[in-house]
């Protein structure tokens, strides 16, 4: 084992411009450099419209960068997608209404040609994890928004991908479930060595979960600061430690700097505040 493992994500000078040279051109991301090492949990935080989802979609190879280099697991982002190296949980749950909860979770496993018995077993295991065991045979429209989001997370985790891309996955959850899911995510990551890129609007969430918090600013979207969070093993006491609050303040200060750059509407500021960002 002389060759070091390649970085899970390596972005060099990546830019994404939507509708170039048209009246509705958007410079969504400019010159983004980001490296995520295997096993790391990195959060992206920043005001609405700063390109967090865009960066995640670039890594997922759902869109192509306009310029710059992007490698995932040492190969092209496209190859990583084709090799199904990552699981993804979107901002919206995006469940299929005609499938039961369990069969929604089984979908990626079906695509991997798992046997029915294996799929069943994994689906019920994942449902236990997100505490929805008794809802296996319900349909998504019978669940609350937060419950649906948990199913989507279970689906993303179902095939134990080496990397998870999560876009505000806990936004719709109540505080207690949210903390439970955060702890579960950290447990899964430490057990399986899964790498996570995590988009959130909540500063405490970013600090609690991450090895590093990437602070972004809008128009044009760019990385303004990367805050290291060397808090060690997280537990309930972490949330009350002085070090934790110090990091929260550090991220908040970095975010405050982005406000001048971005022209946040009052509605967006309001939304950020509700999302737990507490910009003021």
């Amino acid at each position, binding site marked *: 084992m002389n060759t070091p493992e390649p970085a899970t994500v390596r972005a060099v000078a990546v830019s994404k411009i939507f509708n170039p040279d048209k009246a509705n051109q958007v410079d969504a991301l400019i010159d983004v450099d980001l490296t995520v090492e295997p096993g790391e949990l990195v959060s992206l935080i920043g005001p609405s419209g700063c390109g967090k989802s865009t960066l995640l979609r670039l890594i997922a190879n*759902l869109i192509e960068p306009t310029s710059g280099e992007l490698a995932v697991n040492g190969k092209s982002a496209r190859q990583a997608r084709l090799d199904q190296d990552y699981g993804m949980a979107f901002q919206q749950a995006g469940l*299929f209404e005609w499938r039961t909860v369990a069969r929604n979770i089984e979908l990626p496993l079906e695509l991997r040609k798992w046997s029915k018995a294996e799929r069943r077993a994994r689906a019920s295991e994942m449902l236990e994890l997100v505490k929805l065991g008794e809802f296996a045979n*319900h*349909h998504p429209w019978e669940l609350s928004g937060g419950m649906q989001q948990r199913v989507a997370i279970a689906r993303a985790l179902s095939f134990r991908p080496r990397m998870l891309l999560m876009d505000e996955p806990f936004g719709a959850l109540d505080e207690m479930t949210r903390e439970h899911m955060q702890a579960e995510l950290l447990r899964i990551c430490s057990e399986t060595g899964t790498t996570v890129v995590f988009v959130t609007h909540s500063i405490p969430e970013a600090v609690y979960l991450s090895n590093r918090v990437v602070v972004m600013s809008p128009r044009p979207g760019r990385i303004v600061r990367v805050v290291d969070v060397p808090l060690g093993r997280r537990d309930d006491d972490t949330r009350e430690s002085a070090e934790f609050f110090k990091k929260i303040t550090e991220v908040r200060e970095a975010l405050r700097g982005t406000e001048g750059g971005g022209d946040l509407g009052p509605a967006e500021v309001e939304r950020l505040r509700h999302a737990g960002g507490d910009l003021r």
Partner: protein
Amino acid sequence: MGRADDDAGGSAGRLGQRLRRWVLAVAAVAALCGMWEGYKVLGEATDGTVLGWDLPARYDDLSMPHLTDVVARFSEPTNRGTTESVGVSVLKGAWYTLQLAGLGLAVGIAVGLGLAVLMQRFRVAERGLLPYVILSQTVPFAALAPLVAGWSGRFDVLGYEWEQWMSVSFIASYLAFFPIAVGALKGLQSPSPATIELMSSYAAPARATLFKVRFPSAVPYLIPALRLAFASAIVGSIVAEISVGRRGGLGRLILEYSQQASSDPPKVYTAMLGAALLGLVVAGVVNLVELWVLRNRPLGDVR
């Protein structure tokens, strides 16, 4: 838990809705019958002139036979000297027409779905085909029928000679494929970009996306399309039977019976009632299909 109650409430609600629809339908038929007989009574009572206005249609038994006579006619022999009753003839005719229409519908569904998949998959196909699909329906039916009728005996399909009944089914399929193609295309295109992105994040091949996402999403769009296609296939078959001159179906009976209108007025209406009945049966079948395929969907879907 506790959601099971909602479940029951859901299907009960849907059943209640059906029941109300049935009651309404029966009431509408009863009202129609009442108006028919009422019009006759009014005509006879006023001798055709109400407050100085002439009634717009003739009310005598020749033009408007009593409904009881029409119903009674079903159980009487078709012609003097035959043993088969009109009812049996009409049922046989309806069954024959249903078969031709069903075949046409099956072909129409296959072609419509095929075209929709092609158009969804390839932008070029959509741009190239859709105008022709729409254009196909603007060709007057009356112009098409004689053309297709002329095919019989003219050429072979896979070693079989083209027969008259094939022309009937062909016309039925020609009318039926259109709503299916348009509805299916809309349905196949209905999944949100995020849904498609999810599938591409799984590196799912296009075929998997088609069968696991696009087709299930299209189902609510296909039900109304199926309803239209079925109706078109039936009407198309009946008219095609008349213009192609095919014996055995309802179309032929309608033609034959109407030629006897002056001597046997109630008979004309028996064949027409047969056609209406066929339409009802078909609508019922589509409703059952709908109940079955949408049983696991939230109430108040597209439809």
